[in-house]
């Protein structure tokens, strides 16, 4: 068996047995529906599309994904099982990949459980299935980016609360970057750099897909964010073996 598969299996079983996981899914679904129907006035909008549903998603992820990711490494550190994990012949890259994939699959499961809303729009009208599919796909990729940030901050500390707060802050910056809100304060920077920074925001890359356009650059963007933070995650763990 592949080392990452062994870890994936162990982590997935952890989710299946964890009451927290069920609470998380319930909260996710409740907020997702609440935002869409109440705040977003889904019925009144009279659109047979999931635009409203998707537009709230990044903000929901901002708090919920760090909550999923915060325990990934912090818990191993505080319970000491990181010592077991590090002395088994698995190799840290495989362990990191296994842990990340398991939580990403868990998020996928939660995301797929929002299917009643898809049924609802199809019942109410005849929406274009393209944007729905691409929206869901990109939403999952974006969730992966949030999750990779949470993995990284979780590796930094044995305290889950600190890990949560740090990843919310980092993810919040990534959300704001997309709106160019920093432009005013950072206007001393060269324009090229400013453009690069606002290109790093999550939301513009996501919105394309909710309109039915899959741009390969957006896919590459989210995958790069994931890989970047997982490498940081590995570097942090490597660093804790040094000290």
């Amino acid at each position, binding site marked *: 068996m592949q080392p990452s598969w*062994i870890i994936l299996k162990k982590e997935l079983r952890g989710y299946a047995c*964890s009451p927290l996981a069920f609470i998380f899914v319930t909260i996710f679904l409740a907020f997702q529906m609440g935002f869409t129907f109440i705040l977003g006035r889904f019925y009144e909008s009279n659109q047979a599309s999931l635009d409203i549903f998707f537009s709230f998603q990044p903000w929901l992820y901002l708090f919920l994904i760090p909550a999923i990711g915060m325990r990934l490494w912090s818990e191993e550190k505080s*319970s*000491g*099982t990181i*010592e*077991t994990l590090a*002395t*088994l012949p698995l190799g840290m890259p495989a362990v990191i990949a296994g842990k990340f994939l398991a939580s990403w699959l868990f998020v996928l499961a939660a995301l797929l459980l929002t299917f009643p809303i898809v049924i609802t729009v199809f019942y109410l009208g005849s929406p274009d299935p393209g944007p729905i599919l691409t929206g869901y796909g990109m939403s999952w990729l974006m969730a992966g980016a949030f999750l990779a940030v949470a993995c990284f901050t979780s590796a930094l500390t044995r305290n889950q609360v600190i890990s949560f707060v740090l990843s919310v802050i980092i993810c919040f910056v990534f959300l704001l970057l997309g709106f160019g809100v920093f432009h005013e304060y950072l206007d001393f920077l060269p324009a090229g750099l400013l453009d690069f920074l606002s290109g790093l925001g999550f939301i513009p890359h996501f919105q394309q897909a909710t309109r039915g356009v899959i741009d390969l650059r957006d896919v590459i963007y989210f995958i790069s964010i994931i890989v970047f933070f997982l490498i940081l995650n590995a570097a942090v763990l490597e660093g804790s*073996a040094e000290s």
Partner: protein
Amino acid sequence: MIQAAGLTKKFGPITAVNNVTFTVSTGEVLGFLGPNGAGKSTTLRMLAGYLRPSAGTIAIDGIDMAAGPIAVKKKIGYMPETTPLYREMTSREYLLFVGEAHGLADAEGRVEQVIETANLAAIRHQLTGTISKGYRSRLNFAAAIIHDPPVLLLDEPTDGLDPNQKNEIRKLIKDLSRNKAIIVSTHILEEVEAMCSRIIIVSEGSIVLDGTANDLRRCVPGGRAAVLAIRPQDKSAAERALGCALSPLGAGPAGCERFRLNTDERPARLSARLAEAGIACEEACCWEAPLDDAFRHLTRTTE
């Protein structure tokens, strides 16, 4: 089998392990002793591949830890001092996880075997988060031996065990040592005599003794002495004949009294010399200082 050369570990300003060099061969059980904070666990953590040494090298079965960490870790069974467990797994699931992580073909079969060996049947289906301290130790011990590794690193394996289980585990360690190189860290000195073929004592990160239990005794002044049983009235004659002072230890056999004298001479030699001087000696044997006296003597820091 286990080779550590110049191992050093610094935590910021603290030097936890300082230039430690030793080798352990297959068949040996090395008792790793030292006061609290001496650096035992830190050394074992480096040997197990959890901490990276600040300096020095580790080789297991000729493979360098830095060059092939995964190949090396396959050969090691490690029992951490903190006996960590995944709380949401049952004991059996935990062992299965460790077995699969070692790539065992028949992980399930091995799990059953170690459950038997470590007497874990009672908690087989219990969540590890709820088992007692002694069982935590035994479960970690079982996990360390599940892949039948040529090297065992055990950090206080009998900590928290009841007397029966302590004996059981000691016997097991002795049995296992036939085809393994084993390092056992412990604070129980009788245990060292019972199962270790060699002792290393560390103090403040450095090795202060590498040898057998008797080598340890020899380090204290008077740590090795002889006991002679002679009639009390012969005491001064015997002192003259042997040229050293006798200190009384108490009543001996057949109206004799036991005396202790500090010497390295063999007891048989001593009784022969007494016989030459016409003094009857009922009994002559070695006197062994309690190990903890020797331990205290060696690890006494300059206070």
